[in-house]
């Protein structure tokens, strides 16, 4: 009988251990953990919904400003997204309604980021050497002469 008691003790401890393990596990391991791998699967949906997209793209801008989009599409800046010079769409429109004026960067710095002559740029890309440019003074707004939506030389 002595041996039976030993066996019982071991079995009892085992059952208690399993119970503690399983109860602890349900509290410690997140619900969707391990569904597709060693990570919390719910996070995938959370990442997809982490915030609303802020950049809308040219088509979204064109929904309200078709004439601007048309002008842009005809010129050399057709590949430049509206939101490069203007702010992201979400700062201007929310749920289809205007929430704030659209910020515009009209500065010389803005134009220079792409068009100042710079080591590293592809040679074929139009670049300006200020010293050789029409009255080229650093800081003068380029868009006083050039139309940003349809720039011509």
């Amino acid at each position, binding site marked *: 009988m002595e041996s039976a008691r030993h066996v019982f003790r071991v079995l009892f401890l085992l059952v208690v251990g399993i119970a503690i393990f399983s109860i602890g596990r349900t509290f410690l391991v997140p619900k969707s953990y391990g569904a597709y791998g060693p990570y919390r699967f719910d996070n995938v949906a959370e990442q997809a919904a982490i915030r609303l997209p802020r950049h809308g793209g040219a088509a979204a801008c064109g929904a309200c400003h078709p004439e601007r989009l048309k002008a842009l599409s005809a010129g050399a800046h057709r590949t430049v997204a509206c939101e*490069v010079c203007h702010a992201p769409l979400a700062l201007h429109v929310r749920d289809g309604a205007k929430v704030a004026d659209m910020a515009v960067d009209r500065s010389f710095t803005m134009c220079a980021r*792409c068009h100042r002559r710079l080591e590293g740029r592809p040679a074929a*890309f139009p670049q300006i050497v200020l010293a050789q440019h029409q009255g080229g003074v650093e800081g003068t707004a380029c868009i006083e002469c050039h139309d940003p939506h349809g720039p011509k030389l």
Partner: protein
Amino acid sequence: MDETQRDAPASAPDPVGRREFLSSALRLGGGVLVFLAGAPAIGEAGEGYDWTQHRWAYLIDTEKCIGCGSCVRACKAENDVPDGFFRTWVERYVVSPEASHVDSPKGGLEGFPPIQTPFAPTKSFFVPKMCNHCKETPCVQVCPVGASYRTQDGVVLVDGERCIGCGYCVQACPYGSRFLSPETHTAEKCTWCYHRITKGLRPACVEVCPTATRQFGDMRREDDPVRLAIARGRVSVLQPHLLTEPQCFYLALDKEVR
């Protein structure tokens, strides 16, 4: 066990053998574990988005990049990237056969200033960098809490809720694509704008790139331009010797670029 077999009543037509008993016990044990873990919540990643239908890839043509930094600014605006940290950045390489110079002032956030090098450069170019969303990613392997993972559509993400901010992944990434956010104190990185691509939009950096240097595509679509470019063109990846299998592919990558 032998005893059990010997003691089995003679009337039992099929005594349970040791091998059979062990295998059944293991199977039962496994089943209990799966049951205790709770039935996995299987569903869609986003509303109406099926991640098995996509496998995203990124293509960067370094010959087109003008170093304007629009991508870096768009990324910051789209993802609230903390000041001084970058999920994507642009590097400038100024190279001659004898010497080379690499810079990335503020990650290219404000574009690039003119540069004077002590040597006469024979070539120079810009290289946009970001998370390579590797297939065999070292950053996921080292995460001790299962916070980093790779989705089935091929995006490497960080679960901010599980991340303990230990920074192992920051050190493990050979491309320097991760950082510990000073705001959340968890690891952050490029997500290929997962909140955009699951809604059919392109990542913000691709959206604003004025020269189509950056392109985003779906390898599961036969006619996808990026898939075709990768399938037919001569593409390379950063640090291929590490065998991380990056999913950001580069065109016209120079030997100077690491």
